[in-house]
């Protein structure tokens, strides 16, 4: 055997190291409510494999008793005072069952075993001692000759049939030890029948785990969940971390609508004061999830998605924005009220960003005359048409005057369109161009920013300073002709990557 038996123990399902003396009760994680018995499964035969390996003469299973045991029983009743007979009987029964359970019936030297009445006496003394020393562990330390503390002995490696006196004392002390344990338990109302006790104790433990399991686990997964009846949450906490559900939601962790309404107010306030996007985004996701699992579809739902969409836009989180937008699209089409025009405008800009002509066509087909009256929609449509016409002059102007959150959305493609405009300028203007012109036409805030942009794109060598006749620096010029191919490459690269995450 390459690995010692106590190592291999772990691979035996539902079996654990040393449960027999109640030091601890192994509990396997519950997966199912219906199989409560599984909790205690295996306790009876827990240590069977190892013991069998170590106890050589294992006679036929059926209750046969060694002669020495019979003599032992006889001795017990021989000198037993009648008044304590009942107690002794119980104790004897316990000893024998224990011996059977632990498969030491045949290996124990019954003729050297202390009689039950002796054990009872020791127990009484120990009891007293324990009380005196106010439950210090002296007793157990004193009596447990390392039997329990060393699992090696427990697994029976050194347990030899013809035990030395040492062994015997070990065995007895083990019984004593157990005794003490029981004695401590005795304050409670357990009957002293050892096996029953430990069994019950185990059951109780199992129950306890069951209970605690009940508290955290979702409702019985094997019962079909009625999807038609929306769940109503009972959670009263305002904040909750987002967790992507992998099973049916638990009402205890879902906040009902009236709580969610308060949550939204709280989040709005927090966003204004703290502006911690990762926190806010997480909270909004859990808020949206709670709405979804409870099938709440109202104007409030629209409001939540709108606010989250706006916050996402502000932070340039287009993926999150697009998720909100997708939901909003279907919510509006189901007739819920919100800021439909505003979000139609964003959608136009978003489609410009993703260069999605097919959807743009569909969107244009569905625009109503009232939509077209809306300022944001008009702006977005203008952006669309000037982009189509390649009119960068107007485009950058529209960028600067974008209403609401439109500017944030335009940020996502402004760099790309700047490249495109650069290409046009480089091709059409010769031989060079004033930096000031670029600054104004391409929506830069200052000449410095413009020069920075050119340098960032590797065109630093094409910038030159021109002086007038007296040597006074007059203008900074940019050599357009030479820069064309550079910006053509840049433009191609910029148009290549387009966000497709969660595309509507």
């Amino acid at each position, binding site marked *: 055997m390459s690995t010692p038996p106590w190592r291999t123990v772990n691979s035996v399902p539902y079996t654990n190291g040393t449960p027999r003396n109640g030091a601890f009760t192994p509990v396997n994680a519950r997966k199912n409510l219906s199989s409560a018995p599984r909790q205690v499964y295996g306790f009876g035969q827990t240590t069977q494999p190892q013991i069998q390996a170590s106890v050589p003469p294992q006679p036929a299973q059926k209750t046969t008793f060694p002669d020495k045991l019979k003599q032992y029983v006889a001795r017990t009743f021989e000198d037993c005072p009648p008044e304590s007979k009942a107690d002794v009987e119980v104790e004897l029964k316990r000893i024998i069952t224990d011996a059977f359970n632990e498969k030491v019936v045949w290996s124990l030297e019954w003729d050297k075993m202390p009689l039950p009445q002796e054990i009872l006496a020791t127990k009484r003394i120990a009891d007293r001692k324990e009380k005196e020393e106010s439950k210090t562990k002296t007793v157990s330390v004193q009596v447990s000759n390392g039997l329990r503390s060393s699992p090696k002995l427990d697994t029976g490696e050194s347990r030899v049939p013809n035990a030395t006196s040492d062994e015997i004392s070990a065995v007895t002390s083990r019984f004593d030890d157990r005794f003490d344990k029981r004695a401590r338990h005795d304050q409670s109302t357990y009957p002293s029948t050892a096996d029953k006790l430990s069994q019950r104790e185990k059951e109780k433990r199992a129950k306890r785990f069951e209970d605690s399991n009940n508290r955290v686990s979702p409702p019985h997964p094997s019962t079909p969940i009625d999807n038609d009846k929306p769940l109503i949450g009972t959670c009263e906490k305002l904040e909750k971390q987002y967790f992507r559900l992998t099973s049916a939601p638990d009402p205890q962790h879902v906040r009902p609508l009236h709580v969610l309404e308060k949550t939204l107010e709280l989040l709005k306030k927090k966003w204004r004061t703290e502006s911690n996007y990762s926190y806010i985004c997480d909270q909004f996701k859990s808020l949206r999830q709670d709405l979804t699992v409870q099938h709440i579809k109202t104007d409030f739902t629209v409001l939540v998605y709108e606010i989250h969409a706006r916050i996402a836009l502000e932070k340039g989180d287009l993926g999150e924005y697009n998720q909100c937008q997708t939901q909003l699209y279907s919510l509006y089409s189901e007739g819920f009220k919100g800021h439909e025009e505003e979000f139609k405008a964003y959608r136009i800009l978003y489609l410009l960003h993703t260069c999605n*002509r*097919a959807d*743009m*066509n*569909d969107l*244009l*087909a569905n625009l109503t005359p009232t939509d077209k009256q809306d300022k944001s929609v008009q702006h977005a449509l203008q952006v669309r*048409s000037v982009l*189509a*016409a*390649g*009119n*960068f*002059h*107007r485009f950058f102007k529209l960028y600067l005057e974008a209403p609401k959150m439109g500017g944030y959305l335009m940020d996502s493609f402004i760099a790309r369109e700047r490249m495109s405009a650069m*290409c*046009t*300028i480089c*091709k*059409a*203007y*010769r031989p060079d*161009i*004033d930096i000031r*012109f670029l600054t*104004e*036409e391409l929506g830069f805030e200052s000449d410095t920013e413009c020069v920075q942009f050119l340098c960032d794109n590797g065109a630093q060598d094409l910038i030159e300073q021109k002086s007038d006749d007296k040597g006074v620096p007059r203008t900074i010029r940019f050599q357009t002709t030479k820069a064309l191919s550079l910006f053509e490459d840049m433009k191609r690269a910029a148009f290549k990557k387009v966000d497709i995450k969660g595309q509507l």
Partner: protein
Amino acid sequence: MSSLYKQFRLALKGQSGELLGNVFSPSNPDMTSFAFSTNHALVRKNVEYELGNIATLRNEKSRTAWVEAFCGLWKVAYTLEREEEDGAWQRAYEGQRETMQAIVRGYQSGQWSCWTLPVMYTACKYLRTIAIKSDEDRKRRGLKAEDLEDAARHINRAFTLCISDRAPLEESRKWGTYYIVNLLFKTYFKLNAITLSKNILRALHATTGDMPALKDFPKSHIVTFKYYVGVISFLEEDYTKAEENLTAAFYLCHRDAIRNQELILTYLIPTHLLTTHTLPTPALLARYPRLQTLFAPLCTTIKSGNLRAFDAALSNGEAEFVKRRIYLTLERGRDIAMRNLFRKVYILGDKNTRIPVRTFQVAMGCAVDGEGGERVEVEVEEVECLLAGLVYKGLIKGYISREKQMVVLSGSKAFPGTGV
């Protein structure tokens, strides 16, 4: 005995696919008598009896497939003839679907030969039309309409059945591929799921090896196929490919198929505007009144370079253009309009190659002006920007000198392709 069975026998005897296809068409005039020839309880028995003594149907599986196809057909006929209430179209669709499934089985396990393909054509064709009717009916009643999507799936199976046939070419179902593909395209367009068409094209592309050349197929199949490939390329902004396919479709199209020519031209005209910068001649438009109303206003304004009128024409036709998915392409015609305007400026200036930007600005101001309306001055920067755009796109040859506020045009062919 319904005369439909007689036609069926005749078709089998003479191996006439056309006649056979006609038997399975719900618009066959004999459908009425067929509908009244039996009832729900007896239909299968009756059909089995009628087909039982046909000598050519000795193959068990083949005969069962025909029987089932007839049963489905009877359901369609019965519902269409006798039912008026809600849901009739849905029941008709179910019947047609049964027919379709039976036909697929017939080809899969009943060894139906290639000459019977028109049966599949008719079944697919009517599956689609009945599904559309059924969906319309459902929408009217506020229900979810999904029959056409279902039909698309069934037609797709027919497509697989055709394209994956390994029989020798002369008796291969491969000859049915393009008909079914065209029907699929048509369905996907109706479903507004054009991207799905690309899967079909990919599958077609992958099997070109043992596929007969497209030119060997019936002309009608080729024309429709090229039309759809052209439109798909058009929507993907691959205008060169679109032009190639649409032009081929147009020239192959039957001269009396005016409607089809119109459809082709609806996309070919905007395509030409972008690829060759050409407009349709009045003679061409005159032959198609519908296209005349659609395109004529836009064409005249592009030609005259009247930008304001162009914008008006574009927005007038917007609804129609958007519906046909050509708005976003036509809108680019503004460049051509502008080019034509600047070209006029150049000619009026005695083809002087140096023209002040200001001159263009004046021209733009006029062009943006309506009839008798106020002049709308366009900013110099915007004029420059638009000029730059034209130069970049190659519509004008030359450059802008910003310091001198001059446009310097190329000495020869400053406006390529216009003879100036």
